[in-house]
């Protein structure tokens, strides 16, 4: 048998990539990638190195990464139990609860920030007591940034985990019960491992959303370099006086995000086949 390069490569079956799908897909990719390419093309490449390692970029980046990660941890700690309640909790009015949980998704982030101020601000419903009794004040602090980011990003995690829980087979939990496992042990050692892909996917979305959060952060936590100036805020501020600095910051943020997301193995998100 003669081995030509084509036969070794193997041709796709007829109609595997129909033009009617490929063409819009290419347009879609272009729509998403061309603006990012524009960033790279217009970057001030000559001054890039000195700008990249300036103190403000470093501070903003560090703050962004730390706050996004902390916000994700909070979302996991609160969101997984909430997702469990929605999926398995057998509550009346579950539909309403789920709708409320997804409100931060449709709320403009600035409105979210205002709402947080009204509740957790110094004169807020709860904030005033936090301030009076414990001296805790969230606005203008890094903790405030984390709270604002967690508020907007939590729905992503909850929805993802709830979906995974619904798809999980409850019979395995029954099997664990017959083996003597308490409900908490069953959740930890049977349910959670089985929904791990959903948890990972939700965490990634949550982290990415938190990283990019702007409106709620600037409204609730304010803006101060080193404490509350995250990368998106730094970009917005730089845009007014020094657009080139804004481009540099944007590229840094873009690179970090792409590295983290690309580093996530497909396997962890889609689960074992």
């Amino acid at each position, binding site marked *: 048998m003669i081995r030509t390069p084509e036969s070794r490569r193997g041709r796709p079956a007829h109609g595997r990539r129909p033009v009617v799908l490929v063409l819009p897909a290419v347009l879609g990719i272009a729509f998403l990638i061309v603006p990012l390419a524009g960033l790279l093309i217009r970057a001030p490449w000559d001054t890039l190195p000195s700008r990249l390692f300036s103190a403000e970029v470093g501070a903003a980046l560090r703050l962004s990464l730390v706050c996004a990660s902390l916000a994700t941890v909070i979302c996991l700690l609160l969101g997984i139990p909430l997702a469990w309640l929605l999926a398995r909790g057998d509550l009346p009015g579950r539909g309403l609860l789920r709708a409320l949980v997804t409100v931060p998704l449709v709320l403009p982030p600035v409105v979210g920030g205002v709402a947080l101020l009204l509740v957790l*601000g110094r004169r807020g419903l709860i904030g005033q007591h936090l301030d009076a009794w414990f001296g805790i004040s969230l606005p203008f602090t890094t903790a405030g940034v984390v709270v604002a980011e967690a508020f907007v990003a939590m729905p992503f995690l909850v929805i993802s985990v709830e979906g995974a829980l619904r798809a999980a087979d409850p019979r395995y939990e029954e099997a664990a019960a017959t083996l003597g496992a308490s409900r908490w042990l069953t959740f930890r050692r049977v349910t959670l491992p089985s929904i791990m892909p959903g948890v990972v996917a939700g965490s990634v979305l949550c982290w990415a959303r938190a990283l990019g959060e702007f409106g709620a952060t600037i409204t609730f936590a304010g803006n101060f370099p080193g404490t509350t100036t995250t990368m998106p805020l730094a970009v917005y501020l730089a845009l007014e006086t020094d657009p080139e600095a804004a481009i540099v910051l944007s590229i840094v943020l873009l690179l970090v995000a792409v590295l983290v997301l690309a580093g996530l193995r497909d396997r962890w998100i889609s689960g074992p086949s």
Partner: protein
Amino acid sequence: MRSTARLAALVGIVALSLVGCGSSPTGSAGQPGSTATGEITVFAAASLTESFTRLGADFEAANPGARVKFNFAGSSALAQQLNQGAPADVFAAAAPANMKQVADAATPTTFARNRLQIAVPKGNPGKVTGLADFGKPDRKIALCAEQVPCGAAAKKVFGIAGITAAPDTLEQDVKAVLTKVKLGEVDAALVYRTDVRAAGDQVEGIAFPEADQAVNDYPIAALAKAPNAAGARAFVDFVLSAKGREVLTAAGFDSP
């Protein structure tokens, strides 16, 4: 088929309304005092919100057929937008530096001056007495970011007073700072005297001597590439007129 006709009609309506949105028909106007017509787009510093809105209403009353549209924001943000090609007829900034940033401005004229004042929430819960409190770390302080005119003025004032300010947040425009004061989130902030006045009894003002040494000149200019050049000139003339000055003084601005 009926559904196709309906779709075509829908598309037509949408297209027409979009066209309607985009157009700003040029109007006619002659000398100062004669009626101007058409839509006039004014980019104005945030601190001019209340006074210019009032001026706009007065202008429309004097010039039926004219419609004034405002875009209030921090002066530096507005300058950026104009440089990026945002269509506008008039630019009124809170400092000459921002006006200089705009390549397109015809000869600017100073139409008002503004000085800073300390703003505290109603009841002065932080017991703020003067500028010295701005250096105390246990106070919650809001300032404008340096790029914004009120932030530049604040920096100058602190330099004169020899105080190192310890702000907790640097906001994008003076109205955002004022909001933090109104909500009681901060103990004190530096805003314009006009802002304190505009906020009514939600906010208390405390004057301080150094404010006299860092007064902002507010320039106004009709833009060279204004879509409604005649209307632009008419509005600028109105602002500079006696009537305009009356409104501005009532708001708390100093005369130029």
